[in-house]
């Protein structure tokens, strides 16, 4: 009962000094702050402390000297980065993979959702949905493992099919031309089904009376699609497209790392995999931090711009 009585007392006296009111609120919500505590510690320790560690990019970090004793070198690592041909290779590979992704993967869930939306038998629709969500739950190691099994030169299903049709076998896994198509195909296979969820939800909100009215007016299925279905998901498509642009540089570490080998490295190495190789395996901590920082800053600017664009389009922003 005490708490209930204290509530009006909190709100009423505007004359009470502000600090006092804050103190009362902190006391009243002590349980809530206690609950927040572990989470706040987590974010400070694993998200904000590393941001402070970004200062490494401006130092010459030596593990035996430690973080504080290592010498400041200013923009030396960035200078090296922008003059290094490796940087331009990373930028080119990342951008090309991102373009492949937007051109070929982005439309796939939309098309699939539209097709599912046309299905009249609920049971059939549900079975298809259940099956196409499955690859999303499988790890990249398994997806790449499956790709190896199907595309390998000796005994792989795809190459056997090519050979039996009289074609010449292709070494998909260690060829530079096939690296990008393979990456994109794997993403399409793994995530298209899962990606339909958000579009199907937008479609389920369409008033069935709209379709009925259109039919009475003599609109066929294609015209219904064009005039009712597509406008219903237009804003979802716009938002997702802009957000995708915001995460343009995120090519996904695990998949690319697993598909890389010494032969396809020149087309496959991207920022994320390079930071891992140079930083963690070769110990160039400062330089790889600088590479990572460059990527994070560009990514940040892209996301903020994308969010601003979403709002410009009259939608609610995401952040």
């Amino acid at each position, binding site marked *: 009962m005490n708490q209930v009585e204290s509530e009006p007392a909190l709100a009423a006296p505007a004359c009470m000094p502000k600090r006092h009111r804050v103190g009362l609120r902190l006391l009243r919500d002590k349980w809530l702050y206690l609950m*927040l505590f572990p989470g706040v510690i987590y974010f400070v320790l694993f998200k904000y402390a590393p*941001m402070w560690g970004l200062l490494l990019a401006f130092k010459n970090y030596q593990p035996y000297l430690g973080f504080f004793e290592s010498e400041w070198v200013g923009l030396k690592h960035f200078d090296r980065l922008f003059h290094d041909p490796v940087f331009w290779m990373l930028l080119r590979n990342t951008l090309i993979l991102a373009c492949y992704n937007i051109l070929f993967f982005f439309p796939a869930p939309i098309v699939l959702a539209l*097709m599912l939306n046309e299905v009249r038998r609920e049971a059939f629709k549900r079975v298809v949905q259940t099956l196409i969500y499955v690859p999303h739950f499988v790890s990249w190691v398994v997806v790449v493992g499956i790709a190896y099994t199907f595309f390998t030169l000796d005994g792989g299903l795809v190459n056997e099919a090519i050979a039996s049709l009289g074609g010449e076998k292709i070494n998909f896994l260690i060829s530079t031309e096939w690296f990008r198509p393979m990456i994109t195909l794997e993403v399409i296979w793994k995530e298209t089904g899962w990606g339909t969820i958000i579009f199907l939800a937008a479609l389920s909100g369409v008033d069935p009376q709209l379709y009925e009215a259109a039919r009475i007016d003599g609109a066929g299925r294609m015209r219904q699609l064009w005039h009712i279905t597509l406008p219903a998901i237009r804003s979802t498509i716009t938002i997702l497209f802009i957000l995708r642009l915001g995460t343009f540089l995120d090519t996904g570490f695990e998949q690319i790392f*697993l598909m890389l080998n010494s032969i396809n490295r020149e087309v496959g190495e991207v920022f994320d995999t390079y930071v891992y190789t140079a930083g963690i395996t070769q110990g160039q901590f400062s330089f790889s931090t600088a590479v990572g920082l460059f990527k994070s800053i560009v990514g940040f600017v892209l996301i903020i711009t994308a969010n601003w664009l979403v709002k410009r389009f009259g939608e609610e922003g995401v952040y």
Partner: protein
Amino acid sequence: MHERSLGNRLFGIANGTVLILVAAVMIIPFIYIVLISFATEQEVLAKSFMLFPTKFSLAGYRYILSTPILLHSLWVTIGVTVVGTLVNLLMTVLMAYPLARKELYGRRLILLLVTFTMVFSAGIVPTFLIVKGLHLTNTYWALIIPSAISAFNLIIIKNFFQQLPDGLEESAKIDGCNDLGILLRIVLPLSMPAIATFALFYAVNHWNTFLNAILYINDSRKWPIQVLLRQIVILTEKGLSDMSEAPPPPSKIINMAVIVFSTVPILAFYPFLQKHFAKGVLLGSVKG
């Protein structure tokens, strides 16, 4: 309701056929791998390629079960998944609930700081140095603590809590319940479907964890199944040959059996949660 014209029916048939093909492309690779994993040694050696085995054997699975390192890594993954998911849920729910209470002082600042981590990350090298500095490397905790809360899931669960009716909390307060009691006795029971969905998402992430494992675990005896799987299937076809006394069956059978072995446990949960997770994904689109 709708017209049964010839054009419409043809369209429906064509559409259905394409959907069946799409579903087949996504499922057949799994079926193929399960089939080959049950093949016999003779058949794999005799044919360079086969669509399906004509004789069945358990050689691949028997080999896995006789290889301690594989069984051990499976236990590592099971342990990390169970403990990790519990830690995830505890930390996420405990943090999400106070942030869902609009009257909380400092709430906006904390939300802003959490959101910022979603758009700007320090990257793997500084995070690696922190984890190393905390002496977590080469412990199983390195696979659990650095990923204890997903900011994205946190915000979605917070939004979900916000949608619950306020009246319930107030009546509980009048009954003398404190905030922790409200969370445990009122909010959580109402949120079980959403919590189950996020348990699945978190568990899948732990089960499939690869990057954190190669970053933080050097000791091959502590590897989770995904790292070992890469070692066996992708890096070398003979990765296991010196790890067991028994003569190994052709690596192809083992490869397939290991893939099945490492995938089935997590897929086994999927049918039970499927009806919830579409809703869970969509909670994300509700602004709060």
